[in-house]
């Protein structure tokens, strides 16, 4: 049996590599010519992107009618995708900001990647409110810009809150990500011999010279930004949930939505980060930095958030029953038994039952199991938004207005396109910027913070 030394925290980086080795191995993807596999992957994601572009082209040319949306189901795949991608975008900031503030140093190995995913996911998400408009060419109307007509926007509308919440979140996440990148960009500037790359990295690294002063400023800025980003993690999805919670529709009009949506977002975000990291650590040989322990911790977070989501799932029918509101109860029952029951039970299985496997250490340490479960969680979380949106709309107050929603190939095309965009960006990112923060990782190798105080090493 392995003897565990509890007097010492386990190392975050395995194999005690030299600092130079860390730099080298993280910089490899940027310095070597990409393999054929990389281009194959890129061609797949670009094809997906193209499918989305074609579907979108049709939509722009002919109208929203190309989708399955109807009256009563005014929103369907469009807003489902929006909420889904916003949710995916949650893990990044949570890992980088909240875990940073809580001094969870294990985050260093995965923070950069998670943050990048946040940026890309929010980019995907931001597309949908734009393209779901009947007249996207007038999208600027949702911004409060001064105009000669004296027309202002309606600040009562949750959609306006959305505009601000998402754009703020995107801006702050981007800044946070970029600030974190500066030392690494400087390292890359110093490493590269290519003139063009050198010029680009030089500009982007803002004259970083690894001076003590720089580091001091950097650390302070980073903490401040982390502090700014932390409430955003909670606010963005709360506000997204207001799109539904503020409405009058049974199935949407629920006070539990803000925490429920935040938990769900973290849940899906971690699952997506896990899915992608499992591939990345393998492909780029970074298993010693993104260790199984990382995955184990993420699995635990997924388990916790899964149970929070499960709690919300239970609360919905309970409140519907307890309130005695017949329409609410009808929605709850029709979700579980109606036309979309298969989707509902798949959602429950993926989000509640399957993640319970993470109680077992064996599952948490099995890479294939982690991979499959994280994929299923993403499927489940996409379905959750779909179920919330479609099943509440398709049978609301007046039975005369009820109508089934069926997606069209254009709906699927755009969904595929959004994945295409996301993964294309991920692939491009992995070849142009360090996917792991070199500077931060170097800060958590064993002996990076020599101290006399035993056990304080990873504070």
């Amino acid at each position, binding site marked *: 049996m392995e003897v565990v030394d509890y007097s010492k925290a386990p190392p975050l980086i395995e194999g005690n590599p030299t600092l130079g080795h860390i730099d080298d191995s993280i910089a490899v993807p940027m310095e070597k010519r990409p393999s054929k596999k990389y281009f194959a992957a890129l061609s797949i994601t670009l094809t997906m992107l193209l499918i989305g572009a074609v579907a979108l082209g049709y939509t722009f040319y002919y109208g929203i009618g190309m989708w399955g949306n109807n009256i009563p189901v005014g929103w369907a795949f469009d807003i489902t995708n929006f909420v889904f991608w916003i949710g995916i975008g949650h893990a990044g900031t949570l890992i980088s900001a909240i875990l940073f503030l809580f001094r969870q140093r294990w985050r260093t190995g995965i923070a950069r990647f998670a943050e990048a995913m946040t940026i890309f996911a929010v980019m995907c998400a931001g597309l949908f409110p734009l393209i779901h408009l009947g007249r996207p060419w007038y999208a600027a109307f949702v911004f409060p810009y001064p105009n000669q007509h004296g027309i202002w926007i309606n600040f009562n509308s949750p959609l306006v809150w959305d505009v601000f919440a998402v754009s703020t979140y995107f801006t702050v996440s981007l800044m946070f990500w970029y600030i974190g990148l500066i030392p690494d960009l400087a390292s890359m500037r110093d490493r590269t011999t290519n003139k063009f790359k050198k010029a680009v990295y030089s500009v982007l690294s803002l004259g970083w010279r690894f001076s003590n002063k720089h580091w001091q400023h950097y650390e302070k800025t980073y903490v401040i930004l982390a502090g700014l980003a932390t409430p955003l993690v909670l606010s963005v999805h709360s506000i997204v949930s207001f799109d539904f919670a*503020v409405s009058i529709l049974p199935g949407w009009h629920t006070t539990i939505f803000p925490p429920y949506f935040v938990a769900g977002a973290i849940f899906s975000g971690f699952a997506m980060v896990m899915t992608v990291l499992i591939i990345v650590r393998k492909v780029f040989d970074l298993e010693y930095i993104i260790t199984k322990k990382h995955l184990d911790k993420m699995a635990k977070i997924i388990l916790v958030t899964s149970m929070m989501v499960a709690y919300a799932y239970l609360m919905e029918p309970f409140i519907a029953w307890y309130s005695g509101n017949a329409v609410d109860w009808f929605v709850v029952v029709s979700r579980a038994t109606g036309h979309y029951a298969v989707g509902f039970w798949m959602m429950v299985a993926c989000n509640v039952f399957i993640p319970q496997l993470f109680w077992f250490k064996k599952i948490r340490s099995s890479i294939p199991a982690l991979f499959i479960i994280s994929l299923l969680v993403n499927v489940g979380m996409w379905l959750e938004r779909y179920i919330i949106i479609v099943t509440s709309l398709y049978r609301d107050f007046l*039975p005369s207005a009820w109508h089934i929603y069926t997606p069209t190939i254009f709906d699927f095309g755009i969904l595929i396109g959004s994945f295409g965009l996301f993964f294309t960006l991920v692939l491009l990112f992995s070849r142009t910027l360090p996917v792991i923060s070199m500077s931060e990782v170097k800060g958590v190798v064993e002996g990076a913070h020599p101290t006399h105080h035993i056990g304080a090493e990873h504070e």
Partner: protein
Amino acid sequence: MADSNKENPEKGQFYWKSLKEFHDDPASAEAKANEFMAGVTDDFKLSGMSDMSRRKFLALLTASASFAAASCSTYPSKGEVIPYNKEPRGVIPGIANYYASTCTGCNQACGILVKTREGRPIKINGNDEHPVNKGKICARGQASILNLYDPERIREPQKKSGSSFSKSSWASANGTIISALSAAVSSGKEIAVVMKTLLSPTAKKAFDEFAAKYPTVKLYSYEFFSNVNRNSAWKKSYGSEQFPLISWDKAKLILALEADFLGNEGNMIEQTRMFVETRNNGDIKNFSRLVVAESEVSITGMNADIRLSLHPEEQYNFVMSLLHEFVVKRQVSRFALDRNVVNTLQDFSLEKFAERNGIDQKSLKGLVSYMSKYKDSSIVYAGDRLPESVHIAVNFLNEVLGSTRLYRENQANIELLAYSTAQDWEGLVSKMMSGNVEVVIHYDSNPVYHLPEDYGYAAALGKVSTIVTLAQTENESSAASQWLLPINHDLESWNDFQTRTGLYSLQQPVIYPLYTTRQKEAIVITWASGNESAYHDTLYHEYLMNRWQKEVYPSMKLAVDFKTFWYSALHDGVVSFVEKPEGWDSYKVESFTSLPTPSTSKGYSVVLAESYVLGDGRFASNGWLQELPHPVTKVVWDNYAALSPDTAKELGVDYNDLVEVRIDNRKQKLPVFIQPGMARKVVAIELGYGRTNAGTVGTGIGVNANVFLSKKGSFSQWIYSDAAVSKVNGKYELVTTMEHYSIDNIFNKDIQFTRGIIREGTIDEYEKDPNFIQVEREADKPVSIYKKFEYNGIKWAMSIDLNKCTGCSACVISCNVENNIPVVGKDQVKVSREMQWLRIDRYYSGTPVEPKISLQPMLCQQCDNATCENVCPVAATTHSPDGLNMMVYNRCVGTRYCSNNCPYKVRRFNFFNFRYHFDGGYYAQQPVEMVNNPEVTVRTRGVMEKCTFCVQRIVEARQEALQDGRKFKGSDVVTACQEACPADAIIFGDMNDPNSDVSKMREHPLGYYALEELGTKPNVTYLAKLRNI
């Protein structure tokens, strides 16, 4: 000049630009005299200029632009274009003109008032002056305006060459036809004119002249659905030709047997109005009871207090059993002593009848006791499609009850030309087959489609050398013709109509014929003159005036001259005069005692009904009507085999499965629609569908069930016994605007009541406690934390009396026409994207076998606390100070959030630019846009829209009031739906005016709001339905 100014300062100030000028320097004076400085104008020689100087450039630009403009313009080809700088007499741009005319959408000839803007008709309303339809007009009549602008109207005479038509001219068409007519006369061969009901006395005169010129002319007339059985039964019972009109408003009990008097039979506008007079919640004492025994579910059946679903062939037994009950058992009337009568009735009894048909004895007992209580106020009315024998028995029942007093003696229907009998048609076909018919003229009729196939009419046409079809658009009969002559639309025509005694209805054109079409009567007169050159534009106009001057005017014995009379008649659209109807003899009891017992069915019975939306199929090419949901089933763009749930189960079929219906050797495959409340073993099918030649829109819509018609008939001409029905492979998707969720599912059961959408009760409940439908007292309502907005001045509101609404859907079409609602097509209705701003929701309660039906017109409720408004990010939907929930199309970006948050789901979204999307842009063609109301924006794709309470009418009325300097009142505005409602169920007005009708309705004990508990504070009040049970 400068000097004089300088010297005389009092004349005015002298302005100088420089000292040189002040001192009168000659150079300065010269410069002043020339407009341009020296050198600017001197050298303007085009040849001497540089290649591209500014001037040369401008000169070339001007020249090329004017050449381009001149060469691209097609103005010269459009003839004389007259701008409105000189106002035509009577036309003020922006102000609508109204002209009285007559609708010929069916054979009722209702009076209409046509709204025109800048010379083009844009809406058809009822004519207030018309004593029959009194300002109302049905859905079909209103939608017929679209046919005027149908891009597929025939524009010039067509001659068949080979299998298709090619352009011809009136001269050559009429030349050929006149010589064919003359040839027919000289060879002694028949000239057959096939028409529908002849309604115009002047047209009749034209035909008399035509027949005088060509003695071998024979007129044939038919109607796809008609009251021939009722009239022939009446003749046998009372000796006169026409079944009398009925005082529906005086009835205490109406027993309608397979009769759809609120839907498709007789003048439904008049009948609806008279019927709802007995459904006034302010006059409970005189509330009538409507009992309907029918096999399919009709509009009348939907409004029944008590509805018995009865096999159509049992109707005879039902009437006989009722007669047995009254005559034999209760010894009512003198006929109780008549041996023959008693003998005829002895085999019948209500108990046996109830047992055989599985009908609750109690409900029959109730009916009988109610009938004996209100004997002479109980009218029994048998439907058009029932056979003569049932009508004879019904006549007898009314005689026994004494309800003959409800027959109107002051007015009766008139028949100008009797319908041809089966013998007539057989004679025609055999003459055609033997080559004894030289010319067949389809006079605005479509016999190839309408006549039962077993006459062999279509085949016999092959033996006729000259076939002429007069029609607006191609049809099945025109396809079999050599000549297709385009005729005017109603709105381009002159005419007079007489359908009743003492009443003329006039038709006048409101627009010059759009194409080289001619009025059909004028064509006949041209032929009668034997000379094509006899035709001129005003031929029929003059002919009509002549007849009126010579025949009608003298008989009126008026003090005014003819011109005054004529113009006032045209202005009013109607002329009423004293004319005593012929009356009828005393009852002939032999007609009853000699009654043959009709055969009854063992297998399935097929009930054929006229389509509510397409009529006899003539409106197949009208997209608005095709898309108008069926009043009962809510199916659009299709017909189907309606089956009861039991029958469907027996056959093992579900919605959209195909069944093959076979009567003898006539068969057709139809999709199944399961209709709660239908009688067992009955297949109900609407006719008017399955047209093979009805243009782009109408061709191939639905299934042609005319194949079931037989010249022999069966139980009657429209009810066929012993049909075989079997399931066949395949599916066909029917599209409805309402989901057919099952009504007996525990979660859906009575959902309309539990959710506070529909409230209703019986008149007994209402008498006991007038407030019985009020579930919540004012004190129980939650207190709002927001300050209430003060509506000072007018606040708009609407009330809809569910007691009166029959579901006829006239309001829906009126709204469509008024508000430029596009046609979206079946594929879009399938995905629930219909655009109608007003829909009529239909809910079932009770059991699928005996459902009760509740109707509710649903439109934007214009909520005070509108849920749509606060979710719109761009404030495209906002509230007006007069309480309207407004929609700003320009501002709308199309998030659809407002619709999601609307609990009534009355908002409509332009998922496409529907005018371009439907049928390859069919309704984007010229001249369809002419039908648009210029006061209402045509919405583009991507914007939300909804009912506006006809805001354009509000604005117009307000403007008028301002101009006239009077106070603007709520009663100045009439919405389109209100204007159309034949039952006057819709009231619109100012709720802040305590004397307005609408504010009284809001305080009415029966008034409620849909989904009241949501706190949206709607401004549409529904008055709960009361059932007299």
